[in-house]
């Protein structure tokens, strides 16, 4: 009996951790899309940049928690440069062009990653106290995964507070609903779009360094995560934050279960889930085209 219970606990916690990582990447993508109607194909690559930067910072002897703060900031600065140089001039063009532009960006970032860090898989060295396991209901669960779960909850809480309670957050949310009105009230929309893009990049970087110790860091991680986060925001509804939370949980649980039971074709189940949901609910679960 205890064997079954420990498997259930294991699967539940694993799917929660996976959902959490999906959620942070997908929310970053969703913020960028919801606020400025830009579907950033380079988001996955930025996630990988976050992971690699985290690796380099920790490898150079920095504390893991300090790296957790600095790596997303570095990715944010990269995002700022990208936004000002190539995204901002493209804002008025149709979506097909920004898709292709950010696709080029993805190539550039992936190529730069291979140039700087090479093709070798990397691992983030964890602090001593996070390397052990903790007994929970008959299973020994890695402490790091529990810490990750805690971190994800803290990040989501902070993001919700930022979007709901601070002035900048309120301006961001308002701009997604009635951009003209916000513009009339004297807010420079160019900065709002910039803020949204940079916030999305910071989230990608955060997810990267959080997910780094969970998996190996290799040049393919960005592309895989990009597709997964597409699936999440499409199921949840484009631009919908609540939808993304539900969808991330759904995809995380389905993927973990599918990997446990059929291993090889796990992702096929996830794509079929997406196709079925979209066929009957073309806007996704909670997609109203609004950002809330």
């Amino acid at each position, binding site marked *: 009996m205890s064997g079954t219970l420990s498997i259930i606990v294991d699967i539940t916690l694993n799917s929660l951790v996976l959902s959490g990582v999906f959620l942070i990447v997908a929310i970053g993508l969703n913020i960028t899309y919801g606020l400025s109607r830009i579907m950033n194909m380079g988001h996955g690559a930025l996630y990988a940049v976050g992971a690699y930067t985290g690796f380099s910072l920790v490898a150079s002897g920095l504390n893991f928690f300090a790296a957790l703060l600095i790596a997303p900031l570095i990715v944010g600065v990269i995002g700022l440069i990208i936004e000002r140089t190539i995204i901002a001039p493209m804002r008025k063009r149709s*979506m*097909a*062009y920004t898709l292709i532009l950010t696709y*080029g*960006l993805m*190539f550039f970032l992936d190529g730069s990653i291979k*140039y700087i860090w090479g093709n070798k898989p990397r691992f983030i060295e964890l602090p001593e106290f996070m390397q052990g396991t903790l007994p929970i209901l008959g299973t020994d669960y890695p402490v790091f995964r529990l810490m990750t779960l805690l971190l994800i909850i803290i990040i989501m809480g902070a993001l919700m507070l930022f979007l709901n309670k601070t002035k900048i957050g309120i301006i961001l949310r308002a701009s997604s609903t009635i951009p003209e009105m916000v513009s009339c009230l004297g807010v420079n929309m160019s900065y709002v779009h910039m803020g949204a893009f940079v916030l999305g990049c910071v989230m990608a970087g955060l997810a990267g360094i959080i997910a780094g110790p969970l998996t190996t860091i290799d040049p393919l991680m960005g592309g895989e995560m990009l597709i997964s986060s*597409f699936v999440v925001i499409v199921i949840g509804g484009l631009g919908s934050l609540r939808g993304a939370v539900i969808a991330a949980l759904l995809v995380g649980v389905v993927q973990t279960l599918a990997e446990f039971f059929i291993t090889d074709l796990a*992702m096929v189940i996830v794509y079929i889930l997406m*196709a079925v949901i979209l066929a009957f609910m073309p806007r996704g679960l909670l997609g109203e085209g609004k950002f809330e």
Partner: protein
Amino acid sequence: MMNRTATIPGIRSEFHPVKIVFIIILLSGLAVFPFVSDNRFYISLITEMMIYGLLAMSLDVLLGYTGLLSFMHNAYLGISAYAVGLFLIHVSPTSFWLACLAGIAFTCVVALPVGWVQVRTGGLAFALLTLAFGMMFHTIVWKWYDVTGGDDGLMGMPNPDISLFGITIGNSGDPLVMYMFTLVTVTLCFFLTRRIINSPFGAVLEAIRENESRAAFIGINVRKYKLLGWMMACLLASIAGVLFILYKGYIGPSTMSAFAGAGILMMVLLGGMGSLWGPLAGAFFFIYIQDYISTMTEHWEIYLGVVVIFLVLFLPTGFAGLTDHIRRLRKE
């Protein structure tokens, strides 16, 4: 998404004399090329360009004329190629035309239910559904090791002889034969597609692209025509797939990946959508640049990314838009 204005069908279907001369020169140039040049490398490169040109053209039917974006059109090239390969390995290693037919038929059988689900939506949802289905096919091919060879790809495919009316033209393993066969097929497909696009059927597709609800109001069955447009695009892609496997003799899952799919999309946008010849030119350019940069440096992705970014920033309407622009300047 589309800012090309609709043209009255019929007017565009007539060739300008200058264009006819240009097309004849281009085609005869391509036909003579392998006899003039001994360079095997360029012969196979141009074959690949033509195959991808056909695929980009098929995506143009969907994107430029029907207004539907497909992220993973290469999936249908892949399905067709795998079907031909498996047919030649397991069923009959010599019957060439039967294998071609098997590839095209199988792709249509797969594409029909997928299209039926997809046309129920539109816009971005359609685009993302194509991504979901495409990734599904990619994962199946990648993970179903026993049938598809998984990561290693499909290997050991026999090369059947190409024969027409009882006369054997050559073996499909010969690059020169495949070059000629590809050239003839792609040319036929181009003129046939052009004819279909300039027919009333093409006009209906363009009406749907311009305004879907208006098209529905005047009694057009929008879903049916979207599905027909989708099937036509998939049919052309499957022909490209047949050519692909015969020319390469090999197919791996990376041909069906999302990144390769976005590459096809890029060829269409580079060439300019809604012009049929533009995507062909886009494919030639894209493959050449990719090849050139990858021979120059190991880190070709960086340079490819930079080239793409600059092209989108400074040449957004593609080559077709550029010629339109020149024509307008000359008129003024």
